[in-house]
Structures are given as structure tokens and as C-alpha cells.
């Protein structure tokens, strides 16, 4: 199987380049990450992040044949040749497929992603009905892989102002939690033309999320809450 992989080492290279690789033995059921690991055994310099190998740690987000995804859960058999691999778009490249995610993490921190309760805490659990708990499904499962934000045009154009789909999904995860008491502060923090409202519902984020989450819908729901708050 043929691969064309983006190569760049910020220490030594002035320009990025694409390098061709061939992998002879492809076993049935093999994932893209397995192929990268085999290629790395031959060429130690090929650089990418990875850990869990099952789509739960969010390390190996990359651009695969033009589309963001996780290498470890992308079957080789679904890919056209040469498989073209590039780093996640729109962020500084540290080396090869490894991008600098500082901006992405800053946006995550900006939404104060922690449960905030003002009342005194009981000695037992906060009660939450199964229906209230169900509202967190599709929100809390985010693995911070950055596939969504780095496919979002608004994120590319305003990375310092628009918070991007991943952070906004997290914001809504706490807005939707029956236990959280910071709704007003959270919404106030999202005021202004950029942080939230730069989302133009282009839906790239939804199409690429490897966990099947729907940031666009979450963003829409935040917008509704904002409207409710302002009347």
C-alpha cells in the first residue's frame, strides 16, 4: 500500500515536503495507526502521537486523505491510495504529523470546563434523574482530539477570538448539567460577536468527529439559551 506523508522538522527543515512510503504486508483489519507504527520501525524519524490504539485518548488526530480523523480507528481498507497524511490543518506544526495544540487547549480552559456549584455540598451525591443525566450523552464523551476545531473555517480565520466547536461543546456540557449553577456566568462569558457567534453552521465539525458528537447542535442550543437570557 502506498502512502504520501507530510514531513517537516522545525529544527532542521526550511520547507515541508511530502514523502512516499510503501508498506508491503497489510493484514486484514489493519488500522492506519498500525501501518504508521510499521513504517516508523523502518524510518525512526517519522513522527506522530499515539497511545490507546482504540479511539479513546484522542492522541492521533490527523488529516487523512483530506479529512480529519483518528488513525487508530481508520481501517486501511477504506482508504484510497496513495494514502495522503497531513497534520491537522490550521495549527503550527512541530514535526511531521504533530501539531502544537496550545491554542486548542487555551480555548478549552477559557470555557471554565468544571462543574460549578454555589450551594453547600451535601454529604451524599447530588440527585440527578436518568432523564437529566441523558442530556449529558453526546457531550461528555469528547476526547479533545481537535479533529473538529481544526476542520472549522471560523477557527482557522479567528483562532484567537472564536472558541471553536470543541470548547463550545464543553461549555454546553456544563450548561446542560442539572447540577451546575454557573449558567449565567457561562453565558455572560460567551457574549460578543466572536467567541460563540462566529459559528456559521458549516457543520464540518460534525462530519469529522470520531466520537459521533454534534458540536453544531450544542452551539445552536447555547445560542438559544443566550436569546432566552437576553429577553
Amino acid at each position, binding site marked *: 500500500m502506498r502512502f504520501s506523508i507530510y514531513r517537516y522538522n522545525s529544527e532542521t527543515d526550511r520547507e515541508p515536503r511530502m514523502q512516499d512510503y510503501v508498506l508491503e504486508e497489510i493484514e486484514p483489519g489493519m488500522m492506519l495507526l498500525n501501518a504508521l507504527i510499521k513504517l516508523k*520501525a523502518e524510518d525512526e524519524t517519522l*513522527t506522530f*502521537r499515539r497511545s490507546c490504539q482504540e479511539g*479513546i485518548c484522542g492522541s492521533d488526530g490527523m488529516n487523512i486523505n483530506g479529512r480529519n480523523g483518528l488513525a487508530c480507528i481508520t481501517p486501511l481498507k477504506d482508504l484510497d491510495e496513495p494514502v495522503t497524511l497531513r497534520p491537522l490543518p490550521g495549527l503550527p506544526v512541530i514535526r511531521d504529523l504533530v501539531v502544537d495544540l496550545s491554542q486548542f487547549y487555551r480555548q478549552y480552559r477559557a470555557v471554565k470546563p468544571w462543574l460549578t456549584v454555589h450551594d453547600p455540598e451535601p454529604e*451524599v451525591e447530588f440527585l440527578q434523574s436518568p432523564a437529566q443525566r441523558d442530556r449529558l450523552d453526546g457531550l*461528555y464523551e469528547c*476526547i479533545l482530539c481537535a479533529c473538529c476545531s481544526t476542520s472549522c473555517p471560523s477557527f482557522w480565520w479567528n483562532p484567537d477570538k472564536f472558541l471553536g466547536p470543541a470548547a463550545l461543546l464543553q461549555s454546553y456540557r*456544563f450548561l446542560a448539567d442539572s447540577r451546575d449553577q454557573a449558567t449565567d456566568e457561562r453565558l455572560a462569558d460567551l457574549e460578543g460577536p466572536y467567541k460563540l457567534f462566529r459559528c456559521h453552521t458549516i457543520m464540518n465539525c460534525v462530519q469529522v468527529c470520531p466520537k459521533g458528537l454534534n458540536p453544531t447542535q450544542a452551539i445552536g442550543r447555547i445560542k438559544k439559551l443566550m436569546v432566552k437570557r437576553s429577553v
Partner: protein
Amino acid sequence: MNTARRRFDALVIGAGGGGLRAAQQLAQAEAEVAVVSKVFPTRSHTVAAQGGMNAALGNVLPDNWHWHMYDTVKGSDYLGDQDAIEYMCRAAARLVIELEHAGVPFSRLDSGKIYQRAFGGQSQDFGGAQAARTCPAADRTGHAILHALYQQNLRAKTHFFDEYFALDLLTDDDGYVLGALVMDIATGEPVVIEAKTTLIATGGVGQIFRTNTNAMINTGDGMAMALRAGIPLQDMEFVQFHPTGIAGKGMLISEAVRGEGGYLVNKDGERFMERYAPNAKDLASRDVVSRAIAVEVREGRGCGPAGNHMLLKVDHLGADVIKKRLPGIRDIALTFMHVDPIETPIPVYPTAHYTMGGIPTNRYGQVVTPARTGPEEPVPGLYAVGECACVSVHGANRLGGNSLLDIVVFGRAAGNHMIDFLKDHRYHRPMPQEALERAQQRLASWENRSGDESVAALRLELTTVMEQNCGVFRTEEVLQEGVDKVMAIEERLLHAPLRDRSRVFNTARAEALEVENLVDVALATVCSALARRESRGAHSRVDYPKRDDVEWLKHSLYSKQGRRMDFKPVRMKPMTVDPFPPKERVY
């Protein structure tokens, strides 16, 4: 060249559940705490834990901590330290509530309380009916807990060193631990982190086996750092093989599947666990179920064309239960096997999963080593928690759901003890130049290695040897061969050059350092397995098939220097209740 230096009150190496829970405690007490992790914190392996965390809340069936304690002692095959087990089981309910308050989206009952499910080895009333003690967030409990703990640390303003690789501990001649030498992966630069007290929370070492359920980063770095600092590793022969890894691949299919009513069948469609554990059946302890599967396959009742696995049946639970309670498992089966458990059983086989052994500690998380004269004593300033540590609550076999509990209970306890330690040790001790040089030596040694061995090839060879020579069933001869082979690999690694010597984000260098750690820990494991001439919990010696409480009711300690084995007694005396004396273990 001058190495950069940073100074903190406390250094936490590892940002899994254990490290983050300790850091949270320290940061909330306004200690300056640095957390070093070789991956971004939420990518730590705790994120993969599926089924849940044990606590006797009694939300679904009657329960109390004392029953939980009994099950844990029995599950440990009486090798667990009963004071630490009592401490953990008493603290469990409080820790779950704390996590719930921290935001963990636990699954719920109609009453609004936390849902609890059945897991293996759980009973009511000291060995009676099945209990339901495991608190889940669907089947993504580790993810939910790890993210919540990270979020609480962001809130508490913990200092994070993300993508920094810890190389070695720094120690002075009085035996104090003064911090660690770490490497910034992004730049390749070494950094000295000085701390008055240091916690190792680097997780397990499933990667010494070829097929395992662990993340690629689980390479036992902290354990190897301890070994190199002259600290022995305890009970390393006890490796948990999880009964239901996806056959041939290793991804975990959580015990929650059997807790929710799934069961195992052999090629004749027989529910064979009824023969091995008439009462608990599929929810017997993991060591029991794993051995049963291995025996079924060996005796020709395996499924598939090669007859090499069992089938885990879930379809009878119905689509609703599966989608609601086991969504992550369904995804894994769909992605990696192209089978939908709603319709088709999942092929499974025992897979290396969890390291019961580790860095010896007491129940405050203090690392303890045998004193040449008299009983053990703490290494000043050094703590360890989580899968890299051996406190020992899991003894010879861990119960499912007890590890997430272990990491938060002892993470918190260690944090508290470190806060006390800081009160008595207000200033940094001077850092001797030799300490630094020793640690830098390790990094430097990779810069001028030559030869024609390959790091990646040796890693594969090592894991294959461990699988063949230190697996579910063991004998003297096979283990001895294993020791020889691992030692040969250790020697050959000296002739495996680092071909990529660049600085920036050099993952080849990190992997080489990891393989070095794997070799140290693999040797500890196989040497300890060779030494223990009995069968207990997960350690099954075909040549010594019985548990031997007269000779072997003791912890083993392996030291790197001279590959020496020592032993120390099990702490049979709980904190307040009567001990549970060893009995025959039936499920």
C-alpha cells in the same frame, strides 16, 4: 551546558487518575505542585477504563464496606495487606461522592442516585449472593473520572508539564528524593525539577506482553526509575490476564458485559463457567475465568477455525440495554471485529491487563524499602500510587472496579501525607552534582550507541518472550528460559543505536528509553515468577499447582542490583476489624 531548573514544593510524575487526585489535594492546600506527564493529561491510560469503580453505596442491593473488604481479601488470594484494604473499602463511598461532586456524570437510577452494577468477585454478607457494587458512567467511567480530575486541577491551578518525559529520580547520599530529571519532548531539552517531595504515579506495564489491553505508553517507566534508584519492586509475578480481551487483538471487553448479564460459551455452546465456578459462574474472579478459558481451549473446546477463543454472548440482553449501558463496548466490537454484539457474540481470549505488583508502599502512599536492620522504612520524600505502586490492596489478583478506587483513595491519601511532609520539610535540600550526573548519564548513553540491533525489533522480541515464557500457565523450565532470554535482550539493547538523534519531538528517543524500562520491569516480573513456587491468584505454576500458605504467604521483593529476591510478611492485621484468615478460595 547548564540544564534548566524548576522548583516546586511537590512533584507528581504521571497525570492519570492517581497522580491527578494527589495533585488536586496538594493544589487545594496551596502547595506549589508540578505534574509531569509524557502525554497530555486526558490522554493518560485511566481514560480507557470502562466498567466502573467499586464502593459499597448500597444503592441497588444491600451492601457495606466490610463485605467489600472480605471480597477484596479473598480476591487477592490472601496476599493483600488487610490494613490497606480496610482503609480503601472504608474510604470508597466518600471518594465516589467526591468525584460525583467534581462533575463525573455517573449513570443514574430512577431515584436520582448513582446506578451500580454487578462485577466479578462481589458478594453480599461475606460470600453470599452476588452484590452490585460498581459505580459506572455508562462504560466510559475512566474517561469521565480522568476528565473531571483534570478539570478540578485546572480550577486549582496545578502547574502542568505536558509532554515531558521523566528520566530518573534525583537522590542525595542520605537517601532523600529531591525531584527528577525530565525531558521536554517538544524540544528534547532536559529539565531538572526540584521538589521537596515527589510522587510516582506512572501507571502499569501491560506493554511487556505482546497482546495486551494497555495503551502504548504503559511501559512501567516509574517502576524502572524506582529499580534504578535502588528500590525493589514487590509482587511483580502477579500479572492480571483479563478473561475477555478481543481474541488476537487485545482490546478490552469490560467485565461490565458479564455484570449486565452477558456470558461465555465454548464451541459446543456450553456455558462452561458453570463447571468451574458453580455459584459465581461468569462473575467469578478474573484469574479463575481466565484459567477456565485457557483450559477450554487447550482441551479442544475453543471456537473459530483455529479453535483458539471463546465467545462472549450479549445479544440476549437486547438492543436497549446494550446501547444504554455498553455503548463504548459496542463501538469497539464494531470497529475492530465488525461484529455488532446486539446480534453476534464477541470472540475473546485472556489478555495481559493489569500489574498487581509495583513500588512497595504503605497506606499513606510512602514508598517503603526493607531496612537492612529491622523492619521496612519509608524513603524520605518519596511516594507512589496507582498501578505503578503495590500498597498492596490487590495482592495476587485484583477485583474489577478496584483499581479506579485504589488510584483515587491512595492518590488522596498520598496527597495528604505529602502536605504533612511539607510542614516538616520547609526547605529544598541541596542538589548534589553527582545526582544530576547520574541521571544525565542515562540520556547520554543513547547518544553514542552503535551496533546493528534495532530498538523496535527488540521490543517485539521481548514482548513475545514474555507472552510465551511468563503467561497464564508457568513452569520452572519455561520461566528459567524466559529469564535467560530477557537477559540476552538486555545485553543486545546496548547495541541498538538511536538512528534519529534529532532534538525536536523525537519520539524515537522516547521509545528507546521506554524499551529500556520495559526490559528492567520484564526481568523483575519473570525473576519473581520463577522464585515463587506455588500457585496463588493470577500466578499459576503447573509444577506447584497448590497455594502454599506455610511457605509463601509473603510478598516478594525484586532488586535490580544482582537480581536479588527478598521477601516480607503480608500485613494480616486490619486497622480495626478482625483479620480474614486464609481459606480455600471457591466461587
